[in-house]
């Protein structure tokens, strides 16, 4: 499975030059390809769908924030508001019959992107039996194996080698699938991420590593934690091509996905994509909010909001403001229903305490 080490056949003076001249060493090729055209040529119908999906995430998360305030959701609750274009842009390009997705604890948006019933997601947040993990996982631990969505992981960076393992399984089974593994700018400094990069490149695994760079890891700005803040470059030493993408623009994210997934599906191994984005809300629910200015947040909301951006495009294309407002109304109704359902569903049966610890009986 591993590529034959080229070094064995190298003469001493072929040395370093060989690496530079190596025609396979096309680290910039994907970015160059992407630069040629950064905007996905979406039909109006597709754009409308992106708008709807992003808005669903936004309204769902707003509601989750409210339920948290009311004490119906406990523990950690990491909202995805502001980052919607990343999950929608990327996941809309997947082949859901084959591909798999894995992420960290900020996972509600990725679940919604699959069109999974908001009721079961919200009920997981409120810890009810009807939740997708029977209320046993909570906000950070959501899974839908039916959709090949593998969670939902609370240890920063852990999902990266897990994702490489899912990709290993795709390759092993020759099922043609690829894995999309998301992680944060903070997670990007974990050692295991590079262990995974190395193995993924070494074994040519079908995986797209995506850094969701929302500029902060809790209260730490990337420049305070990272010597190299342009994360797409960090695959260089593993010969993984990088791409830098505006994560606040759903059409750009989608176009980047087209380029990256094609590369991966053609058997060229992993891609490292950096999506620059921003989270509007606190890291989790209580957040000191002292590490950035209100003006900074306001600027992002006013000038870079991914939903406003696609809305503007839709209006330019002739959609009426009222029609879009009706969509919003419909979504709000749907989210309210989910909230009511999640509030009124029963908690798990006491007997569930001892179920699912193991699969088999011994």
């Amino acid at each position: 499975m591993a590529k034959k080490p080229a070094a064995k056949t190298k003469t001493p003076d072929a040395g370093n030059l060989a690496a530079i001249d190596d025609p396979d060493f096309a680290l910039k090729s994907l970015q160059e390809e992407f630069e040629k055209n950064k905007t996905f040529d979406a039909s109006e119908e597709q754009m409308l769908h992106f708008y709807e999906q992003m808005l669903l995430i936004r309204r769902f998360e707003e509601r989750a924030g409210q339920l948290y305030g009311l004490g119906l959701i406990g523990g950690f609750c990491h909202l995805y508001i502001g980052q919607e274009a990343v999950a929608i842009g990327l996941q809309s390009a997947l082949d859901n019959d084959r591909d798999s997705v894995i992420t960290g604890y900020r996972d509600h948006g990725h679940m919604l992107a699959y069109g999974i019933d908001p009721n079961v997601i919200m009920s997981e947040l409120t810890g009810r039996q009807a939740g997708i993990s029977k209320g046993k996982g909570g906000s950070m631990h959501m899974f839908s194996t039916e959709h090949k969505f593998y969670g939902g992981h609370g240890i920063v960076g852990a999902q990266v080698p897990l994702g490489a393992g899912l990709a290993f399984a795709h390759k092993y089974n020759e099922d043609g699938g690829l894995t999309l593994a998301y992680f944060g700018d903070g997670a990007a400094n974990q050692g295991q991420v590079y262990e995974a990069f190395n193995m993924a490149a070494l074994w040519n695994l079908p995986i797209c590593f995506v850094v969701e760079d929302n500029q902060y890891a809790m209260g730490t700005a990337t420049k305070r934690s990272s010597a190299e803040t342009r994360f797409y470059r960090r695959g260089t030493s593993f010969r993984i091509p990088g791409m830098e993408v505006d994560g606040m623009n759903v059409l750009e994210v989608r176009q980047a996905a087209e380029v990256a997934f094609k590369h991966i599906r053609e058997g060229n191994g992993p891609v490292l994509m950096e999506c620059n984005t921003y989270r509007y809300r606190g890291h989790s629910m209580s957040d000191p909010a002292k590490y950035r200015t209100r003006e900074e947040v306001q600027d992002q909301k006013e000038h870079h909001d991914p939903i406003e951006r696609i809305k503007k495009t839709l209006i330019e294309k002739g959609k009426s403001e009222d029609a879009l407002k009706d969509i919003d109304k419909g979504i709000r109704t749907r989210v309210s229903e989910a909230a009511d359902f999640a509030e009124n569903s029963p908690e798990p049966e006491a007997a569930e305490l001892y179920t699912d610890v193991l699969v088999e009986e011994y």
Partner: protein
Amino acid sequence: MATELKMPALSPTMEEGTLAKWLKSEGDKIEIGDIIAEIETDKATMEFEAVDEGTLAKILVDEGTEGVAVGAVIAMMADEGEDVGDVEAPSASAAESSDEKDDVEGEGKDVGQEPSEAEVTETAEKPTRSPASDPAIPEGTNMVSTSVREALRDAMAEEMRRDERVFVMGEEVAEYQGAYKVTQGLLDEFGAKRVVDTPITEYGFAGLGTGAAMGGLRPIVEFMTFNFAMQAIDHIINSAAKTNYMSGGQMRCPIVFRGPNGAAARVGAQHSQNYGPWYASVPGLIVIAPYDAADAKGLMKAAIRSEDPVVFLENELVYGRSFDVPELDDYVLPIGKARIVREGSDVTIVSYSIAVGLALEAAEELAGQGIDAEVIDLRTLRPLDKETVLESLKKTNRMVVAEEGWPTCSIASEIVAICMEDGFDHLDAPVTRVNNADVPLPYAANLEAMALIDTASIIKAAKKVCYIEE
């Protein structure tokens, strides 16, 4: 109908806060997402966003007011088409006060949150289990002397032939044939796709293996020794052991983490540790630590077939020992079942892994002194076969636990607890632990010998619980 705007909580532990600022005035039109007000506590600030549209009809709490209770109505909003003048303030505040709770900084978790008020009608009880017995070995079955090393390899090879999804990965498992030659010959038979040499990146490949199990494969992840699995323990426990539970039974993780465990010979403190008690404390894991070759084979095959994550603890010093293994097409043993390796009536010696050999030696010597010892090999450390332990205690009324590992919070401690809780009436003497010395394992030959469990200390303890003077 007018909508009440209530003081929000920044966390479930927040009781009250300051209404720092109104960003909208009475009569202002409000759109969804507009920031209406700013709320503060001593730790955090929050912008209060509108989730409905309408007109701000009445402000009931002035800006700058401190100590506003969570849930108190702070303003009224008129819905579309409603006359602002018609909106009335509610008569009583909806907020209830409760005891002070500590709010802690950090990620915002709800330390101190009241438990749910929902009635729990039934109390949950951990289901009891009774493990299956070993399959009967048909009369006339040929017994073949096999080393533990070969038995383990044979088990893996048989399962790899049987199930395409099974693959082995680890450092030096393929071309080098295994650091301790346990994977010898596997590369030749199964090829590089299924016998994978990894970089030295335990955390990474334990995670990758776990992900592959989640993705439907059946990985066998070899740690060169379990000392290096400390690099990877996060994935074993947080990723592999807990996933099934956290996903409500959706997402399985059928993986085997295997390799030598416990003290080897003269390798010093960092390479000599028994991780049995560590992993055995984790719900969601299966922990197996066999002693002889037949058990190693039968349990390894069971481990690979299990739908659950298994930690399979081998022992370097035992790899080369040979034992009879039944020559059968498919010798699979039940997980979770201890084995009585020597029957006796005076005292029970409970043990596992390498210490079983010492326990058997001790039993031989004790027999010479007129003491008839029963020896139990636990084989599986989690789930632990309490039944077999307690049945033996009923018979002998005296018990010693022999374990190559530290005494504190050990498997021996667990056996003592089981006997106290469920076997108290059958005890004629305190259950006694025989373990290694409670120190990092020294390198010097003499000190190492002093630190490790030996036959003499087992004999001494057995006599002590029998109240026989030396």
